[in-house]
């Protein structure tokens, strides 16, 4: 219930009161032999309590680095991080070692590949209890009890026995469930899910997403869902931030973004996704070209070289500005970008005929 209220309050008006994480002008540059790689270059966004925010973009667009930089997980050097990331009144970037009290306690992270994200040398028990002991001050025994409860909650059969096994004795989907249990067992306020389903089979993906969604509603946890899979965003997130070449190019609510994309890149992403009700020989429209080299970004808009709508103004860098109520974009176009060819609305393209999940939270509102 609280979740729904928070969700409906996600309009601009009530933002100021309910902001959990306020990222302002975050940068993360890496010094390399090839020059300075601007992996994250001035990113600003907010996460409200209890909401789920999607961050989408291609590989190398800076989605993961944004979150790692925020949590102090980028090694410096070679990385250099500046800007602000204010979590519940504290700037994470200025906490120094004190960020460890927030990492894993108030902000938890699930990583992409559960095969490599769990320590193969330690039992699940040790890996789960260490966080609980550290952050909640539980004894090993109490921590273990709680860990078993959580394993049960995420659907691990026979958790009392399996907790003493090693990661290699679990399947990929089960490992990701363990990761989720591990991340949520300290009941964090924010969960960063970094491509949590990318390494999993499609059938398992749906289960894992459903599990994250259910637990999010139950605990009222805010979620940052980092993904390149627009379907995941459509099913899980209320608001979406689209990243390209280390910057945010568009921000909107999920229905707005999918129904009415405002940035040519977003439109390109949507038209390059297959639709379930299309005939097999229907052609996808890919975004031409390659993502830019982050060490040698083009002048002006980084997307311009691949953009069908680019014009002379694009040699200046567009700023991320309010475009419509609750929406921001970084583009010089006066109106909306043109679709590469007449097709159904992007929203239809993406969801196909049997979409169900995306509208569920809205239906649940009182």
């Amino acid at each position, binding site marked *: 219930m609280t979740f729904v209220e928070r969700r409906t309050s996600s309009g601009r008006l009530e933002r100021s009161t309910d902001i959990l994480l306020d990222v302002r002008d975050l940068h993360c540059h890496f010094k390399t032999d090839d020059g300075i790689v601007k992996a994250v270059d001035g990113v600003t966004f907010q996460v409200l309590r209890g909401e789920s925010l999607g961050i989408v973009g291609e590989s190398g667009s800076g989605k993961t680095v944004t979150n790692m930089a925020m949590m102090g997980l980028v090694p410096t050097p070679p990385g250099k991080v500046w800007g602000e990331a204010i979590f519940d009144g504290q700037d994470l970037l200025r906490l120094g070692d004190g960020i*460890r009290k927030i990492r894993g306690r108030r902000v938890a992270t699930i*990583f992409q590949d559960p095969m490599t994200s769990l320590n193969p040398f330690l*039992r699940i028990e040790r890996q789960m209890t260490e966080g609980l002991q550290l952050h909640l001050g539980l004894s090993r025994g109490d921590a273990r009890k709680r860990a078993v409860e959580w394993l049960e909650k995420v659907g691990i059969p026979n958790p009392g026995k399996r907790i003493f096994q090693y990661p290699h004795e679990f399947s990929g989907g089960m490992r990701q469930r363990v990761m989720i249990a591990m991340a949520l067992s300290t009941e964090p306020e924010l969960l960063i899910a970094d491509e949590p389903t990318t390494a999993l089979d499609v059938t398992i993906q749906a289960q894992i997403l459903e599990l994250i969604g259910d637990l999010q509603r139950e605990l009222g946890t805010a979620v940052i869902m980092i993904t390149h899979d627009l379907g995941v965003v459509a099913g899980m997130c209320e608001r979406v931030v689209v990243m390209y070449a280390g910057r945010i190019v568009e921000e909107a609510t999920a229905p707005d973004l999918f129904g009415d994309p405002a940035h040519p890149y977003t439109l390109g992403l949507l038209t390059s996704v297959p639709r379930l009700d299309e005939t097999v020989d229907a052609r996808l429209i890919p975004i031409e070209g390659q993502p830019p080299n982050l060490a040698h970004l083009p002048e002006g808009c980084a997307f311009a070289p691949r953009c069908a709508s680019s014009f002379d103004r694009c040699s200046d860098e567009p700023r991320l500005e309010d475009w419509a109520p609750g929406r921001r974009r970084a583009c010089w176009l006066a109106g909306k970008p043109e679709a590469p060819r007449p097709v159904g609305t992007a929203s239809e393209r993406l969801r196909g005929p049997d979409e169900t999940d995306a509208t569920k939270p809205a239906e649940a509102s009182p």
Partner: protein
Amino acid sequence: MLRYILRRLLGLPVVLLILVTITFFLARVAPGGPFSADKNVPPEIKANIEAKYHLDKPLHVQYGRYLRDVVTRGDLGPSFKHKDQTVNEIIERGLPVSFQLGFLAAIFAVTFGVSAGVIASIRQNSWFDYGSMSVAVLGMTIPNFVVGPILVLLFARYWKVFNVAGWEELKDMVLPAITLGLPFAARIARLTRAGMLEIVGQDFIRTARAKGLAERVVIVRHALKGGLLPVVSFLGPGLSYMMVGSLVVERIFRIPGLGQEFIESALNRDYTLVNGTVLVYGVILVVMNLIVDVVYGYLDPRIRYD
């Protein structure tokens, strides 16, 4: 686990039989013999001596006889060169000394090697990293017949902390142990550093950090086990080598160990002693490798024993 160890131990005799056979015949193939260096020995006396040691019999008879003595009585035979001494006596006298020295050298090598490697990996590209790794390269490349005398000069002659040589008091073991252990410490340091750097770059270390664990816990609990695997593999042959003794170190410090017998028996064509020392080395090597495999399995739960 126990079954695995038993099975490996059952394989030990087979390995040793092959080892003894090859050594036995290789030694005989080498030109010369135990008494060929003795000058001006009348042929009758030479024949007498050879008869005493059964060298006049055909080779396969000698081999059969040797094998029978070793297997049934554990008798490695008389030494051809050390008068009135059996090979068993020589080994019983030298091996404990070599073990003591090797054990100390191993402790030195592991302690210094692992800590230097871990610190170097944590502070990658720092002055400690460059410094310790340069010292490690030196430690590996400078032969111990140079390191030993330098240590003696500094610590025994100049500062007079230790005795120049000898094997009487406990502190006599320090310089030889360092001399023997230094190249191993260097090797272990480099292996540890490389192993740790590889592990620290893994995703699960990022997970551990994301949990808010202190860096010390991340390193000790999450990284060390995996990072030390290459070191453990190296310790099998490494420890065996240290345990069985070193000619050079024993010579420099006048230590009555087994290492010198290794080389001298071969040079003297002291057939029985060659066989005996090789056999001892073989047993140590097999046992060490078994221990290493067991430890490896303990460190890495993905390894199965079947």
